[in-house]
């Protein structure tokens, strides 16, 4: 019971406070003018193109990074699973990007792609016939590319370790049996290995999707939300901290919270089905 009370206080109170705040219009610099506006903050959010642009950016960066990380993470996990050299050393090497704090890795990638001084442009210019100093942060798609690259570089190791744990659960006798029956390497992978590690894949996808959906650091560092690259988290930051519009910021926070809740529910449901199938 005490644990439940603590959980309600720690988790429930801030959420309820945010929901309550979202029904008011007021600024931190002018709290006397706090007034009840009902659902207006939600209405303003849903009818503003800035909100949908942030939603688009958030979904896009989530889909791109999670898919690429899943594929790359699986390849790395497979290599680590099969490789002869000590796994501990490999795991340490693989975890280096993940252990670097996002602010540092974000700035590293920012400097790498910076116009004028970034080494990426300097490399490109060495190529024959190219004399361009490309402005990577001057447009939406190129900014998205660098932001996604930074996210993928940093988080793929996390994905690979989760998948490696899944690979360890695969029954090797089934693999052997399939090979004896004449199955190719690809067939073994698709028919035996992947179905056996569904649960691990689901857990990895759940964690990374939720994480990616709340992307903030890399965008804040690299573009500050320019060129329509604001994510939902960036939008919340701008309304709440920059503008001190507590009501609007709270409404957006509640929307983000609900989005995350829906994503989690979908994954948890899928996860349960897999477990049931596994048991059956």
């Amino acid at each position, binding site marked *: 019971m005490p644990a439940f009370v603590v959980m309600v206080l720690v988790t429930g109170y801030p959420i309820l406070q945010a929901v309550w705040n979202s029904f008011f*219009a007021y600024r*931190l*610099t*002018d709290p006397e003018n706090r007034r009840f506006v009902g659902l207006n903050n939600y209405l303003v*959010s849903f009818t503003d193109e800035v909100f949908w642009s942030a939603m688009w950016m958030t979904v896009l960066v989530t889909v791109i990074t999670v898919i690429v990380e899943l594929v790359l993470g699986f390849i790395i996990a497979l290599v680590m699973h099969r490789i002869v050299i000590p796994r501990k050393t490999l795991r340490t090497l693989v975890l280096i990007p993940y252990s670097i704090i996002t602010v540092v890795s974000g700035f590293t990638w920012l400097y790498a792609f910076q116009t004028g001084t970034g080494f990426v442009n300097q490399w490109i210019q060495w190529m024959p016939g190219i004399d361009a*100093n490309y*402005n990577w942060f001057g447009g939406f798609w190129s900014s998205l590319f660098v932001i996604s690259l930074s996210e993928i570089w940093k988080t793929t190791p996390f994905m690979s370790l989760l998948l490696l744990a899944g690979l360890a659960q695969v029954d090797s006798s089934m693999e052997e049996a399939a090979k004896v029956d004449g199955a190719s390497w690809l067939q073994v992978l698709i028919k035996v290995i992947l179905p056996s590690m569904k649960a691990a894949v689901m857990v990895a996808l759940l964690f990374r999707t939720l994480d990616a959906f709340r992307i903030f650091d890399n965008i804040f560092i690299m573009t500050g939300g320019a060129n329509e690259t604001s994510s939902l988290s960036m939008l919340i930051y701008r309304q709440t901290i920059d503008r*001190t519009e507590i009501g*609007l*910021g709270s409404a957006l926070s509640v929307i983000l919270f609900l989005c995350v809740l829906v994503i989690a529910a979908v994954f948890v449901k899928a996860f349960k089905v897999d477990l049931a199938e596994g048991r059956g």
Partner: protein
Amino acid sequence: MTRHVASADEGSDVETRRRGRAALAAAATTAVALGLSACGGGSSASGGTQLTWWINPDGGGSDPEGGGQAQLAKECTDKSEGAYTIDFQMLPNSASDQRQQLLRRLASSDTGVDIMSIDPVFVAEFAEAGFLAKVPEDKKSAFTDGIVPPAVTNARWDDQLYAAPFWANTQLLWYRESVAEEAGLDMEEPITWDQLIEAAKKMDTEIGVQASRYEGYMVWINALIEGTGAQIVQNPGASGEDLKFGLDTEGGRKAAAVIQKLADANVGGPALGSTNETTSLDMFQNERAAFMLNWPYVYAALKGAEVKWMDDLAWTRYPQTIEGEESKPPLGGIEMGVNSASDNKEAAWDAVECITSVESQKTYMLGTGNPAAHTKVYDDPEIREAFPMAEQIRSSLADSGPRPLTQYYGDVSSGIQRVYSPPGSVDPETTPERAESLLHAVLKGDALL
């Protein structure tokens, strides 16, 4: 640091407001405040009233002999002969981040803030919110006599003086004399933006400007509009819903046309939409740009970098937006404010008087390269020797055009930056109108920013 101790002269009304703010600030920003409370450094001293001065980073850093605000804190402490000691805390780098940190502390009536170094554009917002103490009557003349008038304008809100100008910044047109001469520009006469762009095109060189989506871009846009005789905010002091804008005017459109022309002529560099003061200086220093609009700190930076063409460096007044119409150079700098929730307001104002004295401003200008707000400093022989462009700075400051005086400055600036970014998308026929529509909607609470 968020305790509240009411002073005797505070009314219950103010007390209620503070309590409300404290609660709101705590509810809204607990996590951020916890994270940021670990930031900053400081010095400590003992004796007399203990004052804490929140300073913006400058060339002196936290070195008490570095020539910056840290040095002034020590010198004024020594001069007070035990009446007060000035401790300092460092604010973040950018003006926006400085505002955020101060705002959070002030909103929660943090008595750990006594004196603040404030970007002039935020004086109105802080004063309107009741965060700044009014300047006492007996200090007013010390803080305003001999100060360049636009810096005093920025220190006022609602007909009251809320801050003391400390240093005042302005931009000059920096250029390579040989290139300007070859381009046929007569730099003895006022230069227009059109002439500058044509010259850069002709000489196949670039112009360093600040057009990234940040405050520096707003500085440029404001200077262009002020240069036409128009103002971004036409009725300073009005409430959000009643604010009138001068963007979609003849002047506003002419200003936008300059940005469009510079972008179309491709003389702003390959990354015009990502340029700031530092990248502009890089362009100029590396000889990619023969012209640059920037603050006076660049002189010391170029000297420090020992550029080979220092003899070719020249400067003149900010370019005209419209030929024949006097330019309005940008105004920046720092104003000194005292927290209305401070328990040591009297000592704080005494300390501000010392910090903003002619002697201190001279020390600061020599130590950091940041121009003094007091006109008398520019007559000093040491200053004349260290800053050959001193007279140009003084006259530019006197004629400068402040950015909009409004308590909604943050929204106004962010909204304009958003619509005018990237510079290549600016169209005089549509951009100013779109910016005004957005600002009206934002200030009515009908749009996000």
